[in-house]
């Protein structure tokens, strides 16, 4: 199998709080991979580790055979041209309008004439259905529109890898369906590799080719949606079915027992 990203024995911690311990996983090329898991398990951290924004305590992240964290600063920046990330908030530049936001990476990294850039931007905006909103400022957009505009910006330079950080949070069902279809069609038509971080299990399992469940510093399970749905592992069952009681703890870990604390 052809993997774009391979993570080996990765450990990471914020100060004393351990986020990952010896995590290994692969992201296959040209497929949609989902990272699922309860809130606070550092799924976003994983994306930032892949993007080289955070440095792991141990282990390696290989992007197309290149160790991301062994690169010099300029090399890392040129590697990042091959990936892109859709942030939870969209992270559009508030001082630019939608058109200029989408044009920003093109203007930064290419020397194309302005007419070509205009055509490229309008094509990307059309792909997310926002060609009519090109002149609006980010604060005039609704949450779903902002996320779609940010998506257009993420695909502006046709990256190889696109990472979606919680793209469905706080969206109404229609927007969610639109985004799902967009992720899927972009993946198929542009042939890019997608990583989706989410806890909307049932939705993402309809489009994902492969899924990992991350919980409590470890990868709990990984497999195709069918495999996960059939899994006998109680932790997987609890998460996929959304049961409130089970082996995955709901409470923030504490050293003092509840009885003693009272």
């Amino acid at each position, binding site marked *: 199998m052809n993997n774009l990203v391979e993570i080996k024995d990765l450990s990471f911690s914020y100060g004393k709080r351990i986020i990952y311990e010896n995590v290994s996983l692969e992201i296959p090329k040209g497929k949609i991979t989902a990272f699922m898991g309860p809130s606070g398990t550092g799924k976003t951290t994983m994306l930032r580790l892949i993007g080289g924004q955070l440095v792991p305590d141990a282990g390696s992240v290989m992007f197309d055979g290149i160790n991301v964290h062994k690169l010099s600063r300029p090399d890392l920046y040129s590697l*990042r041209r091959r990936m892109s990330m859709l942030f939870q*908030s969209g*992270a*559009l*530049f508030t001082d630019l309008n939608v058109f200029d936001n989408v044009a*920003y990476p093109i203007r930064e990294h290419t020397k194309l004439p302005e007419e070509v850039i205009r055509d490229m931007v309008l094509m990307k905006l059309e792909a997310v259905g926002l060609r009519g909103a090109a002149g609006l400022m980010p604060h005039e957009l609704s949450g779903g529109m902002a996320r779609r505009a940010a998506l257009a910006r993420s695909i502006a330079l046709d990256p190889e890898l696109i990472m979606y950080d919680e793209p469905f949070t706080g969206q109404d069902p229609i927007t969610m369906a639109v985004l799902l279809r967009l992720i899927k069609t972009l993946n198929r038509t542009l042939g890019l590799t997608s990583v989706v971080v989410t806890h909307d299990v049932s939705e993402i399992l309809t489009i994902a080719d492969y899924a990992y469940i991350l919980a409590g510093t470890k990868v709990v399970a990984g497999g195709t949606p069918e495999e996960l749905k059939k899994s006998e592992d109680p932790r997987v069952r609890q998460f996929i079915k959304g049961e409130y009681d089970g082996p995955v703890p709901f409470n923030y870990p504490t050293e003092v027992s509840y009885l003693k604390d009272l």
Partner: protein
Amino acid sequence: MFILNLILKLGSWGQRRLSAIGRATIMLFYSLVGRPQFRKNFPQLIRQIYVVGVQSISIIVVSGLFIGMVLGLQGFHVLVDFMAEGALGQMVALAIIRELGPVVTALLFAGRAGSALTAEIGLKKATEQLLSMEMMAVDPLRRVIAPRFWAGVISLPLLTIIFTLVGIFGGKLVGVDWLGVDDGIFWSGMQSSIDFWDDLMMCAIKSVVFAITVIWIALFNGYDLVPTSVGISKATTNTVVQSSLAVLGLDFVLTAVMF
């Protein structure tokens, strides 16, 4: 026990300060060192000079005028007792050029532009704009921090020049046009005591040093803050407090060294 605790606290405070200074230096280093990208950065630079420089002109002109007028009024009442009104021009010009011009402009600049820069960059950080820039393979240090730094370093000395001239004319307005000091004596007394190199250049050097200090503190506080609303408001306050103190302290040091 209490003393031990105090020493420990002092130690950790010092450690945090030192590491902050280290981070600030690294930030400045990465934003300024490297191949310059004039084509991309120049429009940004113009825009930032507009934001930090042009938009500060009104406050600079108004405060310069009033400070000059007050100096003229106060100076006149003191000097008239010694029958030395002729030295009014000299007094106003010396006070403004050597001290008030660079210092007051830098303080106003820290309040007007420095705090705004901190808040702007902090907000960019809180809304993940800086992170998303990084992921677009655009270095936010080079593209966000550097143009703002240069804009501040260019704007503040220019603002100081404007402040100084307006202040001296404010003094002249009160002294000559209102209180009746002779026009010729006012200007010639000034010219005989102000030296181009000793006074005006010192004023320029001071304002460049203050510009670097204020803008560096403002940008670092914005870049390094905790991305929450409390963090932003704290960082904005810190910018004004730290840069004011730094300007006053540096003013003493520079005056002691240069005169």
